[in-house]
Structure formats: C-alpha cells, structure tokens
C-alpha cells in the first residue's frame, strides 16, 4: 500500500524544487565541520573558509564536535552523507588535530549526496584574514567571482596535485557567468607548487593606471587566508562514478525570442506592436477650421480639385511605416 506525500506548504514545495536535480546547477554549497579534537589554527581555517564562501548562503558551518565523522575509514562517511543531504551541500571541509596528523583539513566533494572524492591536507603555516587585516583597502567584495593562478608544472604532472587543482577550482569558482564586469575583478587564489608543498594565497586585486599599455596594471595584495599546505591522504573518485558525474546535458536549441533582433551595427533591436490609435473619438479642443460649414466648403473645394488628375508619387514611403509597426531601439 502506497500513498502520495505532497509538501504541505508552498514554502516546502519551493524548497524541494530548489533541491531537485537541475540541468543548470546552482553554486555548490560548502559545509564546514570539526572533529572531536581540533586546534585553534584549524578552527581559524574553518571560520575563514566559511567567511569566503558564506555569501549567498553557499556555506553552512557546524559548531558542534563530530565524533562519528571519519572520512577515510570504512563507514565513517555515513554521517557526512546524512548531513550533506540535510543541508543540501555538495562540498565539505572537515578539520581535526591529532598527534599523528596535526592541523588536518579534509576537503571533499559529493555527488548525489555520496562522497565522490577527498583530499587530506596538512596545514603547516597559516595566516588568517584577521592577522593580515583583510587587506583593508584591497579587501574583496563578498561573493565576487575570483580569479585563479596556478604555478608550477606539478599541477599537471603529479596526479594528486592535478586533483587538488580541480578541487580548489570547484570549491571557490562560484557561479558560472556569461558576462562579467572587468572592473569588478577583485580577488585571486594563487596556488604555487614547490616540491611537496603548496602555497595557497588569497589576494586582493588593485587595478592601477598603467604607463606602458592602455589596460590597467594589476597589483596583488595578500588579504588572507594564506596557507602552506602538504598533501596527506587522498581518495580519487571511482571511475564509473566520475563518468556518471561528468555527464553533460544534451544541448537543446535555444527558444526563439520573438520580436527581438540582433544587428552587428545597431545592436539589439526590438519590435513593439501598438494598438491602432482612435483619433476620431479623441476629445480635442474645438477649432474653427473643423466646423461643419468650413468642412463642407473644404470638401467642395477638394471635389473641384479632383476633377483635374491627381499627382502620383509618395504612396510607397507611407506604406513602409504602418501605424501598427514601429521600430524602437532598446
């Protein structure tokens, strides 16, 4: 025996629709957790990551300790998957601190609320936003789209670093956009691979007037958080799951937009349809010329003129612009 369960309120319905699988997905949300033991450094890391992602509700931070989250152990991810489904987050960052793995940060991704892949990072050196003063003048706007700069061939040659590169891009890239305000570029994540270490710097961008070229000169200011990272354990996605997750939607033909045309010279041109104007019934000021006697006299005059043959000519020009079709530049 089955029955249909519907959401009881419109709000709940909207919520479910928001969480449903979509062709064009929304920004991946990040959840931040800590284990039973964590150092002040790792707590700072977590709160700074939260600060970076929280704009637009793209981050959820849990304040309680999590005993049963052990990402790299068998069955230790059930709790994570439950929380992911509950908060609709597909990225997670889990911070712990132990003697064996001091200042440990596990970052990972989910697919359909199941763990896809993870990387365990050791934070060797850390400068928080507060320590660097947030860059003050160069402080980036909350939720702006960041740039990424990756340096070093290890990001290509070493598989775990290639993995990290993809993961970092997925974590911080924000919304996929078609257009961007170039003057609004105000932050960059700099990742540099040197041997086993990775330097990760979050910098603000200052655009200054350039002497050499017509484009502005870029200056970078460290605004934090800044890490020195070493990679510990990692788990790659299983091949079939990754293939499943990389599926692309079939590109559907764009719906034809009516009455709007593109023109390389004039730009966007729209067409407006106006209803016929009823001039006859309009209340206008009465004028002498419109009085009946004068109208009749004028009609008689016109009739007399009609006897002589009428001139030919400007009919085609009038037909071009009918009163119902008027072009307007948008």
């Amino acid at each position, binding site marked *: 025996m089955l029955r249909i369960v519907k959401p009881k309120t419109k709000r709940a319905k909207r919520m479910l629709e928001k969480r449903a699988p979509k062709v064009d997905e929304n920004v991946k949300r990040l959840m931040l957790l800590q284990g039973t033991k964590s150092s002040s450094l790792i707590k700072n890391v977590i709160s700074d990551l939260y600060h970076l992602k929280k704009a637009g509700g793209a981050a959820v931070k849990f304040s309680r300790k999590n005993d049963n989250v052990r990402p790299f152990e068998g069955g230790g991810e059930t709790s994570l998957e439950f929380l992911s489904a509950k908060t609709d987050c597909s990225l997670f960052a889990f911070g712990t601190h132990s003697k064996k793995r001091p200042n440990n940060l596990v970052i990972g991704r989910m697919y359909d609320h199941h763990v896809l892949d993870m990387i365990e990072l050791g934070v060797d050196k850390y400068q928080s936003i507060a320590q660097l003063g947030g860059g003050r003048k160069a402080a980036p706007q909350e939720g702006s789209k960041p740039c990424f700069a990756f340096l070093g061939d290890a990001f290509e040659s070493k598989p775990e670093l290639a993995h990290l590169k993809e993961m970092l891009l997925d974590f911080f890239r924000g919304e996929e956009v078609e257009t961007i305000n170039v003057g609004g570029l105000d932050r960059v994540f700099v990742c540099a691979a040197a041997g086993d270490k990775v330097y990760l710097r979050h910098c603000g961008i200052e655009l200054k007037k350039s002497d050499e070229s017509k484009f502005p000169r870029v200056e970078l200011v460290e605004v934090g958080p800044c890490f020195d990272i070493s990679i510990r354990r990692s788990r790659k996605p299983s091949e079939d799951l990754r293939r499943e997750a*990389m599926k692309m939607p079939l590109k559907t033909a764009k719906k034809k937009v009516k009455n709007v045309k593109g023109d390389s010279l004039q730009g966007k041109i729209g067409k407006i349809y106006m209803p016929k104007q009823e001039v006859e019934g309009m209340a206008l000021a009465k004028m002498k010329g419109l009085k009946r006697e004068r109208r009749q006299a004028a009609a008689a005059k016109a009739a007399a003129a009609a006897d002589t043959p009428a001139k030919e000519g400007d009919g085609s020009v009038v037909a071009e612009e009918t009163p119902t079709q008027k072009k307007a530049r948008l």
Partner: protein
Amino acid sequence: MDSSEDLAIESTSNHEAYAMQPADLYAMDLGNLMVFDPRASFSSPAECLEKARELIQALSDKLYELPATVDKVGRLVTLPPPTTRLPREKPLPKPRPPTKWEQFAQKKGIKKRKRSKLEYDDQTDEWRRRHGYKRVNDENQIPWIEARDTDEPGVDPFEKLKSDKKERVAKQEKNQLSNLKAAAKKGGKGALPSTLQLAATSLPITGSKTPTKRMNKDEIGFAAGLASTATASGGKFDKKLPGEKAPKQTGKHRKFLPVVGSKGQSSKEKEQLGNVLSKVLAKYNHDILDVGKAVSKYNVEEEGKRAQENKKAGGKGLRKFSGKDRSAKKGGLFNKKSGGSRAGGGSGGKSGGSKKPLGTKSAGSFKGKAGGGSAKRK
C-alpha cells in the same frame, strides 16, 4: 590509479583547448577566470606572488580584449564558456515517463488541442472561464434540475451530482497513484517529480474492513519488544542483531484482579467469577422446568396461531403512513413521481399487521387510503 591517469589526461586535453597567449604560453580558462603557468619557477613564496601578478596581468589584458558592452557599472565582458569540466553536484534530471493516458493517446494518435480559456455562457450572456471559479455551467450554481422520466425515485439529483464529482476525483487520484507507482518502478526514485514522494501506509489486517491506524514510534517499539520475547525462552537465548536495543516494555503479559474488594464495592474478582457461573448455568437452563414460564409460553403460542388464522380470513392489519416525502424539500420541481407515498403504504402494512389483529379492519383500510391521498396531493 586509473582515475588519476584520467585526471592527468583530461588536464592536458584541456590544455590544448586553451587560447594561446602571444608572449607567454599560459594555459587560460577564461570562463573560470583561471590561468596556469606550468613553466613557472620560484624560490620563495614572495617570488611566487610576483609571478602570479604577471599571470593575472595577462588574464586581465585578455579580458579587456574580449567583446564588451559599456554599462553604467563598468565594462561588461562576454566570457567564453569554461573549458575545465567539473563534476556535477547531482545527476541529470530524468524526463517524466509517460502516463497511461499519454501512452494510449500516442498509440491512437490523439493530439492535445488548445482550447480557449473563455467560453460563452448562454444562460448569463457572458464570457466566462472554462474551468475554476465562476466557470461556465458551474454545477454548484444550478438552482434547479428538471425532472425526467428516467429519474429514479428517491434519488436526490443534487446529491448525485456531488457524489459523482467525488467519484471522479477519487478515480483521478487512483490513476495518479498508479502512474507514479509505475514511474517509480521503471525509473527509480529520480523519476518521480521532485515535490512528490511515495510513502508506505500500514498494511491492512486481513479480513477487517476498517483501515488500520498508522503505528507511532512507541507502538512499533512495543510490538517489536513483544515479538522479540515471544519464544520459549522469552527471548533469552536469541541472537541479537547488531545495534538492536533491549525491548522497551517487558514482563506483564497477564493481569490479575485484587481478591479483596474496595470500600463499598464487592470484589471484582468475585463478580467476574459470578458472571462465569451464571453463563454456565444459563447454558443448561432447559433442564430445569419452571411451570409458570411454561404456561405463559403456551398461552403466547396459542394467541399467535389465532392471529394467523384471522389474517388468512381476510383481515389486513393496521395501515400506517410513515414515509417521508422528499420531493417537498426541493419545491416539487424535480422528481414528480412521489415514490414516498408508495413506500409509506407498504411499510404501514407491515408494521400494522401484527399489532392489532382484531376489530380494526375497516379503520385500518381507511387510514391507509387517507395516508396515500395526502402524499399524492403534496
């Protein structure tokens, strides 16, 4: 390590797709605002920042070269689509499988045709909506229904309209459920619309017509506890499942009443025993002869026989009119046949027959006529 190789291959293939910078060979993904320099070498973090500045400068220059529109807020650049492919968050939405009707319509070649939202209403001389509030031919707004020859007597057409509507709604709901079930069976959980779920109701008890109440958590726990102790050893030697907890309510399968009664009341146990005794004695009651009871029983039987003979002789019992005429309620515009009068006469005959068998023959027949007459007049 297959997946790692896969990653590496992917990144190189992306590399080829990047636009080449004339001065440097940076790998750029403008859609993600990413720039990658595999050739970069540095000795300290400070130096790497200087390198990164160059990279970002190159990226910025490239962005300024892209086609743009100048707006009040600044220079809006159209970005190319990102070249680095990243995994999705959730699977692609599945198309809804066709319903049974849609399958049938496709087989038969039935096509949907568009109908106007408005329809002309002859009765009110207005354009009205086809469906919904203030619609054309709204059943709820009809003041009367004309009677027809085919109308069944005793059926309220207004009630019938209502019940028919209810039936239609119930049927639609049933169809919807079966369609959803088929969809879930075919395409799994993802095939259902995101806002709907199918939930199990509790199983009906075989043989009972009443739907079972859904058990709450405590009740389920209690039932599980009872089931786990329903073995010869009381569940003592049963293997526990991992994570199974001790039964919630144990012990007490029987309850005994107190032997001594409370103040002003006799013992309940005594009462119960008394009840049992009287039941047993009643079963063997026929063995004990009560003369008085036998005589009265004989008298009643005799009386009954006499009454029957009377009836056979032609005496019909008292007739009484006791039917309700429902047509009166709706002002008699529908249902012109007065089914009520017939029913009333019949029932009167039945009820009157046994009550007063003697001496009221003529009076009874007269009453019956009168009753029928009055019903007709209504």
